[in-house]
């Protein structure tokens, strides 16, 4: 579904992404982890064509939704409006399935997006992305600023969507723990370069990843 090959992105003279390659197959959950400033958001922005690539190729088969860092909701519009705007490119603007998926939003349909809690806002952001009926959804820093219980609930919903509807997920996270426990495959980005990639269970045990990103051996978070 997503096929990135040797992509280079420059900001002026600085190189933000240095020949990065990445694939997300249909129905796959893939993690992209790395520290702040590693270039993770840049890759998503390149996929959304918000920033231009200097070289390399990107192929996206199907519909791609990008849930940006910091949610970036339409803050003065209602939850319902935010969701319906997510379907701008789609033909069906019906929001009922989102409220079924995320019942916490059902009671706040008409409230302004910026009056919600952080967890609810993240749900709206993901819901807005889902309204485009994507084949792959990329979520940038989903867990930022949210309580662990909220993050677990969101993670569960993503797993459900992946199992039940075959939704591909590209999870971009500083929190390696979450990303590796949720996704079957992972890439590690450091200052614009891929430094590790492979199945999550292998990366979890690799010394490199553990010392740099996990601190201590991965514990069960469920």
């Amino acid at each position, binding site marked *: 579904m997503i096929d990135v090959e040797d992509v280079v992105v420059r900001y002026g003279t600085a190189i933000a992404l240095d020949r990065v390659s990445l694939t997300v197959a249909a129905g796959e959950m893939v993690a992209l982890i790395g520290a702040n400033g590693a270039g993770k958001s840049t890759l998503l922005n390149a996929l*959304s064509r*918000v920033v231009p690539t200097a070289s390399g190729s990107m192929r996206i088969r199907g519909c791609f939704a*990008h849930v*940006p860092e910091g949610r*970036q*909701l*339409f*803050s*003065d*519009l209602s939850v319902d*409006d935010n969701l*319906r*705007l*997510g379907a*701008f*490119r789609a033909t069906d*603007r019906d929001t009922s399935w989102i409220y079924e998926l995320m019942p916490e939003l059902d009671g706040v349909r008409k409230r302004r997006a910026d009056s919600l809690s952080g967890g609810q806002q993240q749900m709206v952001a993901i819901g*807005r992305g889902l309204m*485009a009926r994507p084949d792959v959804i990329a979520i940038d820093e989903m867990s930022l600023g949210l309580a662990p219980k909220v993050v677990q609930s969101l993670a569960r919903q993503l797993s459900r969507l992946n199992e039940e509807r075959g939704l591909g997920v590209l999870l971009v996270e500083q929190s390696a723990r979450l990303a590796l426990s949720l996704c079957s495959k992972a890439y590690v980005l450091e200052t614009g370069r891929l430094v590790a990639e492979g199945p999550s269970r292998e990366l979890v045990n690799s010394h490199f990843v553990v010392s740099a990103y996990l601190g201590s051996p991965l514990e069960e978070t469920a």
Partner: protein
Amino acid sequence: MSAFLSYLVHGIAVGCGFALIASGLIIIYRVTRVVNLAQGMFAVLAGLTASSMLDLGLPHGLAEIAATIASAAAGVILGLVAIGKRGTSPEASLIVTLGVGIFGYALEILIWGDQPRSFAGLSGLLKISDLELPKQYLLIIAVTLLVFGALEVFFERTYLGKTLSACASNPGAARLVGINVTRMGLVGFALGGALGGVAGVVLTPLTPVSYDSDMPLFVNGFAAAILAGLRRPILALAGGIGLGVAEAMVAGYAKPSYQSSLALLLAITILVVQSARRSSLHVAEQ
């Protein structure tokens, strides 16, 4: 009817015109972040076009609609020049609107000459007990209320209205969702042009317009928009009417030539006070 009441009614009617211009300014600003210095030009263009249409034999109503369509089209053209080129900053766009407004002068003088033109509006007075209300004033107020009502419905109930609001709220997110923000900006400019056109069409029977009538209209419209905080168009209605009434009182009881200066001073004062408060907030946060 007392002098006070006649000033009041005149002020409300003229204020409605300001409100219409202000609403166009606000919509363009919210969707594109550009302050349209040529907003007055839409009103002048529409007024002049309507007078020509009437001269050509078009009936009332059709002439005004044709004029409004013309000013909406002018809005799209202005938008194309102001925001069509990628990477134009809002400050640059501001200067561009100034430039296009001046080009508008050239065009207007070329087509209509440099003398003021007008056309007859609704003549006669509506008499309610001892109130004598000129019918044109009532028309202005009625049209304004209708237009503002339509704007509310447009922004609150229609998908296109919500799309425009999304661009105003968060253009980056709007792009991610697939909205062509530039195209929506042009829609905003078209809407702003149409609103300016309506203002021109209802105000021209009161005061003849010529190419240089746009500046006072812009100044008053912008002042009303500032009073509305450049946010929701509906607030501009209150701002415009308040401004119109204040100016009418100044013109009636003091000196007529000071009335636009009043609007300007009011607007500047509010801007400066807002700025001062904002910068002291920044200091406090540190």
